[in-house]
């Protein structure tokens, strides 16, 4: 913060937000200074993204006030935010794929009437200018569809510049980027800061926050825990503030006896997505699958489970070659898959909890095709008890449950199928911290029962705490296999970084 302009760009006071009666943000006070890069840190669901969205007008605060340059403002929607000079850049930028880059840049900026003329030439010229300013080479007349995510982010940043934004919020911008793209992004961010703009940077990666940011604010469970200059905090401090207790408490590990190979994958390839994936998981073993978002981890899981089968390669289940072309095949072989996106691929939102829980065991609840309601209900109720799912009634629509309890119900669905191989894709994403610990216990227990578990996770502490072995993927390939003893955050991270980039950088 070289410039000592005393008035903060943004002063947030007592900002709170509730969704359907659940408070996700409580009384946040925060000043953002001009010419600083400010990191927001916290676990998933800690409230940092909600706070950012309130600044950008996506959400309205339930309580609290915002001031811009000392003047109270109401950011009622994203368009107002844009006019006030606040731009939110989403991780996967929102764009209009059928419109040209230049059009995407200016859309929504103009106040002109409906029938005013579209100044194509001027628009294109201006778009070129901003691209040059950012030092990126994108043909502004081509449609957005097909641009890489990094380029889409650049278009978003250009859009922020075009509307002369004073505050640019980047919500986990680096997750889908290669290291080189990250460097470009950071260079631009620093330049924008030096111009006196304010940047909010949301990330999970401490090293990035250290490299880029001036100050950091840490959120936990909807509260602002601390704001400080980055230099004043050690990594351990930050982690402690984020999770509210030392990392060690997470270390649950049931001692399971590791048995025969349950799942063996060889040479699994889906061109353009993943290549030559080979690994095995034994009964009683928890194998982690780490890597950056977009490395192809979920795609491998989907291929094994038959949702989107691989083109070549073999899958063996309990030593026998398995032909898995659709999920039914996988389920028949004793596989189960708890997918990453609960709302999209997990729950039947409006259907009762019991129907959600019994969805994967038609044979058990309806042996002759006719549903036995008593059987269904007792199976569901047992599962509710066993997994401590909090609900009013098993007849309740599952959409009325909290995220953690929905996730438990999905897990319950698969446990009823009694799988010998369980694939969990980001099982604790968006779940309260308390419930998270319950999940860790459960996963350990499941392994102790002799099930083979493949755990996909982006949270390295989670992998390190739970797994017997950790596989790491980058750019669709397996890049490391680490035993429990040798695994640590640095090794996982260095294997997760795309290889082609590392070679180039080494050279």
């Amino acid at each position: 913060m070289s410039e000592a302009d005393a008035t903060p760009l943004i002063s947030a006071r007592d900002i709170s937000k509730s969704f359907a009666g659940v408070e996700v943000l409580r009384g946040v006070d925060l000043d953002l200074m001009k010419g600083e890069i400010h990191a927001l840190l916290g676990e998933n669901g800690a409230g940092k993204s909600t706070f950012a969205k309130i600044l950008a007008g996506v959400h309205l605060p339930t309580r609290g006030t915002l001031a811009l340059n000392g003047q109270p403002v109401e950011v009622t929607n994203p368009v107002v935010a844009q006019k006030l000079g606040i731009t939110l850049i989403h991780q996967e930028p929102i764009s209009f794929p059928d419109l040209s880059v230049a059009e995407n840049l200016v859309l929504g900026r103009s106040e002109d009437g409906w029938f005013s003329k579209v100044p194509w030439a001027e628009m294109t010229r201006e778009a070129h200018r901003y691209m040059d300013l950012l030092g990126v080479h994108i043909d502004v007349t081509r449609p957005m569809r097909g641009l890489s995510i990094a380029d889409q982010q650049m278009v978003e940043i250009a859009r922020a510049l075009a509307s002369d934004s004073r505050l640019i919020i980047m919500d986990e911008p680096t997750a889908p980027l290669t290291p080189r793209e990250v460097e470009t992004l950071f260079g631009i961010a620093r330049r924008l800061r030096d111009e006196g703009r304010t940047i909010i940077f949301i990330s999970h990666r401490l090293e990035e926050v250290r490299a880029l940011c001036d100050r950091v604010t840490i959120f936990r469970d909807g509260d602002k825990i601390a704001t400080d200059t980055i230099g004043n905090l050690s990594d351990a401090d930050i982690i402690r503030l984020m999770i509210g207790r030392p990392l060690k408490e997470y270390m649950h590990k049931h001692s399971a006896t590791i048995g025969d190979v349950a799942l063996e994958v060889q040479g699994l390839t889906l061109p353009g997505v993943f290549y030559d994936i080979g690994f095995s998981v034994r009964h009683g073993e928890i194998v982690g699958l780490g890597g950056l978002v977009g490395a192809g981890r979920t795609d491998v899981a989907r291929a094994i489970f038959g949702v989107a089968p691989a083109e070549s390669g073999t899958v063996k289940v309990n030593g026998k070659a398995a032909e898995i072309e659709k999920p039914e095949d996988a389920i028949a072989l004793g596989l189960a898959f708890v997918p990453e996106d609960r709302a999209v691929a997990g729950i039947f939102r409006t259907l009762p909890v019991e129907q959600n829980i019994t969805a994967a065991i038609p044979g058990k609840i309806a042996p002759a095709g006719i549903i036995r309601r008593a059987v269904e209900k007792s199976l569901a109720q047992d599962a509710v008890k066993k997994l401590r799912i909090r609900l009013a009634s098993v007849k309740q629509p599952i959409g009325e449950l909290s995220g953690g309890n929905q996730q438990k119900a999905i897990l319950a669905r698969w446990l009823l199928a009694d799988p010998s191989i369980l694939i969990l894709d980001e099982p604790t994403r968006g779940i309260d911290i308390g419930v998270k610990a319950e999940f860790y216990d459960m996963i350990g227990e499941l392994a102790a029962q002799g099930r083979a578990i493949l755990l996909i996770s982006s949270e390295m502490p989670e992998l390190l705490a739970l797994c017997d072995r950790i596989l790491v993927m980058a750019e669709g390939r397996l890049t490391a296999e680490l035993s429990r003893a040798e695994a640590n955050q640095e090794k996982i991270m260095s294997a997760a970084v795309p290889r082609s980039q590392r070679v180039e950088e080494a050279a």
Partner: protein
Amino acid sequence: MNALRSILVRRETGIAVMIVLFTVVVSLYKPQFFTLNSLRVILLLTPLVMIAAMGQMLVLVARHVDLSIGSMLGLSAMVTGMMFRDMPGIPWGLGFVVAIGIGALLGLVNGALVTLFRLPAIIVTLGTLNLYRGLTFIVSNARQVDRQFIPSELKAMSQTSPILGIPWIIFMAFAVALATYWFVMHTRVGRQIFALGSNPVAAPLRGIKVTQVTLLVFAISGALSGLAGIMYASRWGFVNPSNTGFGFEFQVIAAVVIGGVSINGGVGSVLGVVLGVLLMGCVAAALPLLGIPGTAQGAIYGAVILVALLIDRSVRQQGIAGLRIARA
């Protein structure tokens, strides 16, 4: 080289090639197809479809569909025809104002139902398709407006020609197409329609007034159906409560989708639709020459819609997202 390639892979080029191929094949078989007269026949078949197709294109680009255009055409033609019949001496030009106005109003009702109640356009316009057709019977007392009541100046528009023997209504249809081109390419709201169809979730985040734009799109579709209604009166010289505009929606949808307008919204060009309409006109003009009965037309429209869907699917590598009834 790149420019050439991009022209070659464009949908418009594909349809143009289809038109040429079709003409060549039919002309080899029946040389009389390749005459100026048959060009006139083709062109005379197209103006109504072309005008309504411009509206349907906008509706599809915005990720909706309008099944009620035939009924809107019928109702506005009927009211206009009755006005001519019951108020003799009224300036015939006023008919255009009335027909377009009524059409716009009916379209606005469609749009209001879709946006206000967040209903799927397919069901709403299936309802209004019947509702407006019923209203046509009610206002007309189920009676046809006969030839002698349609102003001769109006009928003359389909017969007299300013140039090359091509009647006025064809020029009007192309004028509408040009105006639509200008509208979608050079006005802000025109681009907003494409943006809305391209990403309906993001549209409001960029200040696009989704409700108003949707209302406008349906109103335009209605207004152009109304215009097609009075041109129907001009072209055929009568308005019948049951026939006028009946089944018109399928012709128009067929022409629009073969013209490359994506059913997934956001994609479509005026040139493509114009060519699609001309292609359909060629087919319709060739049928009697080839000895195929006119009753085959319905089946052809249906087949064309399905073929267009197949082309659309194979053109897009990523395939069509598993879209179901679009949630408004």
